[in-house]
């Protein structure tokens, strides 16, 4: 009887302590990531997977497969399953998203200094020359040999999609290990939430529209899903002409995409798709984005415009709550 009471006490005491999530923090893909799981397993495997992907895909790591491709002088290079898989999916997405999404923009980003931090404004002639190296349609994949051929002089940069791909893969690993719920924060541009928190409440994702830490403009409440954001303010510099130049480049012009958009947030099922979309929609601008949303029907999005207006698709409108001064912002709901 006494023993039963003791065991019961121990169990009840312990029960109050299992609601806290386990968190793993990783530096990878040029960002700081937090992998949070509730009542789960597989955290170290998921972390190892992300670090492995980083090693394969980093454009700045000389040992990576992407670097091997860029040094291949146009010869086919055999790559790992993961690299091949990501490249096939990314190229497919690039085809779907057309001129607004490109995987071979690195020569142009480099010319602007976005890869080094030594910012400059390239001349028109320089940009036209570099644009001849931009066309991911010329990247060849051999399904049987698992080789990739990148024409000489061209460069691949998977920065826009690697985190999304990593998030999807990490979530799969966690689920395979029995994790019921988790939130993967791969550096705030890419977030993936799955399952339900122990208290049953929805995932609450705060949205920022500037680099300033606590300047929240709204909240998204999700059951599950991937949230991706692309903002011009994330990486930009000020030219002598007083203009702001940001890292989201229009593949057609080789210049920062200027479509009146300050930032785009996409909510969808796959983080890879969301990542690609958030970049593409920024480049497309409001009108084309709206057309794509109607055509595809498989994502929701919001755009914060430079003039302060908020464009938000109907599905997202229901789960987005504006904060602070943003409550007064003019809102257009896309239906």
């Amino acid at each position: 009887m006494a023993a039963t009471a003791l065991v019961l006490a121990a169990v009840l005491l312990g029960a109050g302590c299992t609601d806290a999530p386990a968190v793993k923090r990783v530096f990878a893909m040029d960002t700081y990531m937090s992998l949070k799981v509730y009542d789960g397993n597989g955290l170290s495997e998921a972390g190892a997977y992300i670090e492995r992907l980083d090693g394969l895909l980093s454009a700045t790591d000389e040992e990576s497969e992407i670097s091997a491709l860029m040094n291949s002088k146009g010869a086919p290079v055999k790559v790992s399953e993961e690299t091949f898989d990501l490249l096939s999916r990314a190229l497919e997405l690039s085809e779907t998203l057309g001129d607004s999404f490109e995987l071979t923009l690195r020569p142009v980003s480099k010319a602007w200094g976005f890869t080094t931090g030594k910012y400059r404004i390239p001349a028109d002639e320089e940009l036209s020359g570099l644009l001849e190296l931009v066309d991911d349609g010329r990247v060849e994949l051999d399904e049987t040999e698992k080789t990739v051929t990148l024409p000489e002089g061209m460069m691949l940069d998977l920065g826009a999609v690697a985190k999304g791909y990593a998030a999807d893969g990490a979530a799969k690993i966690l689920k395979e290990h029995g994790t019921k719920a988790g939130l993967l924060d791969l550096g705030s541009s890419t977030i993936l939430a799955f399952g339900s928190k122990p208290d049953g409440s929805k995932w609450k994702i705060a949205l920022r529209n500037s680099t300033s830490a606590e300047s929240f403009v709204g909240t998204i409440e999700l059951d599950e899903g991937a949230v991706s954001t692309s903002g011009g303010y994330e990486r930009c510099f000020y030219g002598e002409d007083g203009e702001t130049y940001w890292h989201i480049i229009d593949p057609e012009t080789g210049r920062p995409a200027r479509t009146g958009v300050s930032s785009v947030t996409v909510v969808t099922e796959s983080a890879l798709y969301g990542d690609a979309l958030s970049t593409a929609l920024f480049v497309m601008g409001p009108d084309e984005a709206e057309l794509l949303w109607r055509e595809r029907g498989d994502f929701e999005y919001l755009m914060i415009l430079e003039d302060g207006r908020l464009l938000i698709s109907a599905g997202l409108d229901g789960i987005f709550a504006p904060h602070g001064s943003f409550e007064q912002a003019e809102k257009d709901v896309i239906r």
Partner: protein
Amino acid sequence: MKTRSWIAVFAAAFIVFAGLALLLPRIGRGTVANVYRENERIWSVDLSKVEEPFEVTFDDGEGHVNIVEVEPGRIRVREANCPDGVCVKTGWISRGVTPIVCMPAKLVIRIDSGGDTEGFDAVTGGAG
């Protein structure tokens, strides 16, 4: 002792220990900001106990320098020699939702306990 008395003793003990288990983690914590280098905690400050502003310089000996400023209830990186200055652009943090991250220095400042997170699970946007 009779069975009933034993039950009473264990019930009382259970209530006391359960109460302690729930309360102890919260007693004497304040709002603690932790500074990490490569995910190892190297410095801490209880922001709720800060009365006068002060600065701390973090130098990893490999050329990365971050000057951290602490004020009552908040902390920021005031100056840094990293190329992008993202850690400086992040500004002040006073809550546990957003960390300040300097990638080149592998330096992270987080408010891990006591800071009100407003129930947010994550933040989207704001960083490259």
